[in-house]
């Protein structure tokens, strides 16, 4: 059942309210702009779709549209970030941190500049635009950076909190957002403790740990509910912080289940599942199933169809969970 301590949205299974995580980002920036004169925002000709147009209107002197030039945007932000500013850069994740990866590596990460990279339109959820615009490697290419913070909010409210919270630190961040409206799972009461994994679904006697990141958490919760109806108990973790990774919470869960399944709208190579697997292989080798893109790009299509075809649906999670239980007991 849903974890009562987290004050989650009660109606998520019946009639969930929908909002895109990028909207949480835009709202947080407006609030931050009001509170903190050192917040600056940059984009590369994607003000509206990355939801920074509100900030642009309200704070034109602290907003810079760099035109279609993601390397330039990255390094300008790096200059601002070493000069007392907190710079949020907003583009599609395929372009930033994709196209400008080395520029970010040198001028933001190695330089330790106060820059927050907002990667939008991530995952196959970007749908009809096709694989050129579906960022499915961005977690892999940012979590390998030393001391980087990599955050994938599960819904728009968590996106708001993650964005807002990132301004309190001078570290570089990568925060990943999605385009479509997705179910609002949390509420403003839900505690946000950056770097900590929360257990959204709890059971008395869980047989499998289901770890999900981003909007995939919703599919994981539906799978958990359906499995429970079939008498299979699970635990669902919200891995919104991929780096740092909350080792204690994962270990606590797998010490009960001895099996984990990871779900992400990303390549399985190098993503959140890999991060967990790396940690477990060092501490407590555990049976694991990986859900995500399996050594392939996706294609154009409706988000729903793509999720079905590439095995990211709740149904797919349920099947993989049953397989995992068989492997564990066999």
């Amino acid at each position, binding site marked *: 059942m849903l974890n009562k301590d987290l004050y989650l949205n009660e109606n998520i299974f019946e009639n969930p309210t929908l909002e895109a995580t990028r909207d949480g980002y835009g709202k947080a920036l407006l609030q931050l702009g009001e509170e903190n004169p050192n917040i600056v925002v940059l984009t590369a000709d994607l003000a509206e779709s990355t939801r920074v147009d509100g900030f642009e209107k309200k704070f034109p002197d602290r907003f810079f549209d760099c035109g279609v030039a993601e390397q330039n945007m990255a390094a*300008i932000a790096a200059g601002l970030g070493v*000069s007392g500013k907190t710079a949020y850069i907003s583009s599609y994740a395929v372009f930033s941190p994709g196209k400008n990866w080395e520029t970010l590596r040198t001028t933001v990460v190695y330089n330790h500049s106060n820059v927050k990279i907002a990667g939008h339109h991530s995952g196959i959820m970007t749908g009809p635009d096709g694989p050129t615009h579906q960022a499915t490697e961005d977690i892999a290419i940012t979590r390998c950076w030393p001391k980087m913070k990599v955050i994938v909010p599960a819904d728009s409210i968590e996106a708001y909190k993650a964005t807002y919270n990132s301004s309190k630190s001078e570290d570089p961040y990568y925060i990943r957002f999605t385009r479509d409206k997705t179910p609002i799972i949390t509420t403003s009461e839900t505690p946000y403790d950056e770097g900590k994994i929360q257990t959204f679904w709890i059971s008395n006697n869980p047989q499998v740990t289901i770890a999900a990141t981003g909007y995939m958490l919703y599919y994981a919760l539906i799978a958990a509910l359906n499995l429970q109806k079939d008498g299979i108990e699970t635990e669902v973790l919200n891995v919104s912080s991929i780096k740092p990774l909350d080792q204690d919470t994962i270990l606590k869960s797998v010490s009960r289940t001895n099996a984990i399944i990871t779900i992400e709208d990303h390549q399985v190579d190098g993503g959140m599942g890999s991060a967990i697997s790396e940690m477990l292989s060092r501490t407590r080798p555990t049976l694991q199933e990986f859900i995500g893109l399996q050594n392939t790009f996706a294609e154009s299509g409706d988000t729903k169809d793509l999720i079905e075809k590439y095995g990211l649906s709740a149904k797919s999670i349920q099947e993989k969970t049953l397989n995992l239980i068989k492997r564990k007991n066999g």
Partner: protein
Amino acid sequence: MIEQIDSTKIKILNEKANKIRELIIEMLLTAGSGHSAGSLGMADIFTAFYFHILNQDPKNPNMKDRDRLILSNGHICPVRYAAMALRGYFDISELQTLRKINSRLQGHPHRTSLPGVETSSGPLGEGLSQGIGIALAAKIDKARYQVYVIASDGEHQEGNIWEAAMFAGKMKLNNLTLVIDRNNIQIDGFTEDIMPLEPMIDKYKSFNWHVIEVDGHNIESFINAINEAKSIFEKPTVIIAHTIPGKGVDFMEKDYLWHGSPPNKEQAKEALQELRTLGNKIISEHQ
């Protein structure tokens, strides 16, 4: 405005530049790797910056309103390290640690390793954009410091430079000055053979920059150019400084093969002999 300089000061600065060249040769010999040509070629301009132009305090390298000097072509950092040491940022003996383990003097500069280094660099084409970010921060803060960016000619083949040039022109960043080390060489040969950059002046003019050309070995005209840049209100300024790669060491001059090589023991001896005797014009005490 920066103070004009008289003949006594010019003489002192030329001696400093020569000393910086000696330090570069000594560092590169000990390091056993590193970039000779560009470092030697920029010794006069670094002297002008560290001993006349920059409002900085070596004892307080993070002083709030210090002028910022950004080195985009990080591979010539030996000249920056030598100038900083001579100016009192750290002890000259530390130059001998260049490129060695546990050193603050990384092979390409690292901001958080060495106070006074404003940005990390090495990958070419990224410095102008960072200078723009710092200049924007100064505008937001209504701070009065100047931002100087040094970039090489070869790195003008990177698209990022032109993205930045376009942006600075749009924003009319008059607190930003770009200095280009126009030494005509890059790794694989002469720039005009590998990928022609000319006409540089017209390119920058068309991006809405104020353009000045100078002899990069004439400290007085370089300082005058910086003053002109400061007086230009409506545009960013680029100073195209014509330099001789390897300047001061006869057998290195104008030879692109010295881009990324250090001198060996024999060559270092010959180079130091030439520098210490000003090309056999005077007798050196320590040969």
